[in-house]
């Protein structure tokens, strides 16, 4: 009835499960090393106390910690038989600064997988200083003026734009639906030569890392774009059957209540050769987006991202903070305009919600320069 054309998998006679590939065997000890809840609580409370102590304008403080243990067993009629133990932890700090009618809110999240020691390794002071600094800078900022201008997007969570605006369009889930502008662009140039983009599940302790995906396939490093050329799509089992794109160990789901789908893991733009200041120095009038908020991509590929912390670039220098900025565009128009990548690639933890539920991911990039982008403002 489905009329699916099995290309390489899915129609073989079931001949029993293969030997169990137990990726969880070596991780059992993780659970003995996890800190007690009261230890975690004390660390988080220390963070919020420091926010109060050091930030004289910080009126509202919130600290969060979440821990998730998952035991996953995959057994399927193609013989796949795998098991994994997954430990995810994340710490979040949020602050709202208020002074009369002025307000600014800043948040940061730190996350890891398979790292029971994360909470003790967390540098509370440095996180608090970073948040207070950003909140104070943005408190009295003026609203940005709308228009087209060049932009420099900072590293770490700046990578959320690539994740949302491009990464999702490279998932076979989108290719199947015919909603990706890149569906017929394999081996064609879709981005500036400065752009090489990766999706992988291997970086140690990264929030989106997995030993095997939710279909029992070991994860891998998948080069999506190489020097501007589209090389691979992100594919799961059904994606391979339906589109012919080989699986990449990217079949993921929140839990057993969702069918797995092609989803990203740790997704980032590779570093380039420039210092971040060199990118800023090339811009006469533009915007520096230091910290990104969330965003979304519409059904026809338009994206929209709020900027949490931004500064004007004037004559090659960072000047005044501005708020209310939104980055607007379409992936296929923006990718060719990423003309410079700095040498400071860094990753940030996040959650991604899509067809197979909420999953842990990492986004990342070095500082990048976009030659021209629409800035929404007032």
């Amino acid at each position, binding site marked *: 009835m489905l009329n699916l054309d099995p290309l390489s998998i899915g129609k073989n006679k079931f001949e029993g499960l293969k030997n169990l590939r137990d990726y969880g065997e070596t991780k059992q000890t993780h659970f003995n090393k996890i800190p007690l809840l009261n230890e975690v609580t004390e660390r988080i409370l220390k963070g919020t106390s420091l926010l109060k102590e050091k930030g004289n304008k910080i009126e509202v403080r919130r600290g969060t910690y979440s821990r998730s243990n998952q035991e996953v067993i995959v057994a399927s009629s193609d013989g796949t038989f795998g098991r994994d133990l997954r430990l995810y932890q994340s710490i979040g700090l949020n602050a709202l600064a208020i002074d009369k009618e002025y307000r600014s809110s800043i948040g940061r999240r730190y996350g890891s997988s398979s790292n029971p020691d994360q909470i003790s390794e967390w540098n509370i002071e440095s996180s608090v200083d970073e948040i207070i600094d950003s909140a104070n800078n943005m408190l009295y900022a003026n609203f940005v003026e709308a228009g087209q201008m060049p932009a420099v997007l900072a590293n770490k969570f700046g990578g959320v734009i690539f994740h949302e605006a491009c990464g999702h369009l490279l998932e076979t889930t989108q290719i199947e639906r*015919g909603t990706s502008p890149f569906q017929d662009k394999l081996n064609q140039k879709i981005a500036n030569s400065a752009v090489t983009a990766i999706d992988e599940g291997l970086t140690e302790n990264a929030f989106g890392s997995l030993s095997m995906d939710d279909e029992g396939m070991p994860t891998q490093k998948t080069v999506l774009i190489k020097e501007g050329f589209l090389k691979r799509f992100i594919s799961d089992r059904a994606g391979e059957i339906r589109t012919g794109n080989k699986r990449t160990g990217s079949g993921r789901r929140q839990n057993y209540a969702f069918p797995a789908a092609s989803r990203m893991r740790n997704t980032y733009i590779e570093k380039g050769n420039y210092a971040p200041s060199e990118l800023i120095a090339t811009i006469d009038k533009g915007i520096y987006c230091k910290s990104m908020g*969330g965003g979304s991509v519409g059904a026809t590929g338009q994206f929209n991202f709020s900027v949490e912390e931004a500064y004007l670039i004037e004559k090659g220098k960072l000047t005044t903070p501005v708020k209310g900025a939104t980055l607007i565009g379409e992936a296929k128009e923006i990718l060719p305009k990423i003309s410079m990548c700095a040498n400071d690639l860094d990753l940030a933890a996040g959650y991604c919600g899509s067809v197979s539920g909420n999953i842990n991911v990492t986004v990342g990039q070095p500082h990048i320069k976009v030659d021209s982008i629409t800035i*929404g403002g007032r």
Partner: protein
Amino acid sequence: MVLQNELDTKPILNTKLIKDRLNILSKEENISKWDIGASSSNDVSVQVYKAEAKQLKASQRSSVTLRVWNENEMIGITSTSDLSEKGLKKALISAKAASYYANENERPNFSPLSKSDIKVKARSPIKEFGVKKLYERLKQAESDLINKHKAIIDVPYNGFSEVNYERIYVNSDGAERYLNNTQSTLYLYAKAQEVNRKPRSSGSIKIAYSSNEIDIEKCIEEAAMRTISHLDYKPIKTNKYLICFKPEAFLDLIDSFSNLFNARSILDGVSLSNKDSIGKKLSSTLLNLNDNGLHKSNIGSYEFDGEGTPTQDICIIENGKLKNFIHSEATAKQFGVLPTGHAGLGAKVSVSTDWLVISRSKNGELSNNKLDHKNSNEEFVLIENLNALHAGIKPSQGSFSLPFDGWHVKNGIKRSIESATVAGDIRAVLKGIIDIEEKQIETHSGVSPHVWVEELSITGE
């Protein structure tokens, strides 16, 4: 004895059984005060793509939140999906352990209204379509929608689902609430494209108590009409424009800033209002806003909230003035009022809106000639849908910057806007309302007329 086995027969959530079981288990654990909120659902859903099944899914979900008070009246909360005796016992023990870490300044209690009389609608069983019929109807709907216009190339987002669900609230003080309901949802989002033009997308959602009551034809008609209406698009110049919000868009905007009248947000310091805001002017005198979870258009209504408080019709804004906040038991106690039926049990009791109903105040002062989005000679932007609400709204600051679908209307001619963002401050929007049309439209997320706002920034080209 395993409770899950006993619950396998309908209804899944048996309040008496759960109450009896918890009475026994709580005594074993020396717990004298507890309450439980639970829900359970059975749902079937289908998605299609180009006349093929894309996804056929059935699931049964249960969710339980158990609260326990310790000897110091401090509260611990546990959530689980395990309704078995073992699961409930584990939840009780965990909640008690958590109670010793509770915030001493936050001491929720049972709602004083958790045992008050309520009228729970008697819902008779409905005949379900089942997966096969849902799939066939959806496949046909997809085909019919594609055939509506040559530019419609596919229907990438679609779904037809039916669900039946139950909800209970029980506490150790004798409160016992139960309701069940059914819901069917059909959504069709089409993609259309003309030669050398960008793809355009729009759609329609229909919700009813049963699949039989879903007006499939109307859903197809609306999805086609809306999608086609965006084919002739043009960029809009970045500027400030007179704005008319369609009901869905205005409801989305107001709901995103419900911290303005949410007592939990006020106590948490993340609202633009404060304890003294009641009676103060929040908007133009034209605006009336109620939250009425039992409104006839709310298919998924609940007669009681997570704490067992009856759902009510609460007047929030009247003639532009803030009249009431929405509350849980804990916030109501701090404000010296009764809970309003807006509590959700979770790790912390949340407060959220039910079903916003917006109307034009009879006493409001018009600052302009009467405006009508169908017959206006004004130049304005008609906003159909606001997108990316999770990203573009800053509730604690009051600001928003959101992409939208809509039209630029000039000299009575409507032209779809290629791609644009609307930005502003919610307080300025509310005070800048210059007209609210008479006709209230029932949408899938509330009730509202078209609302006109004096001037907002639009970023286009």
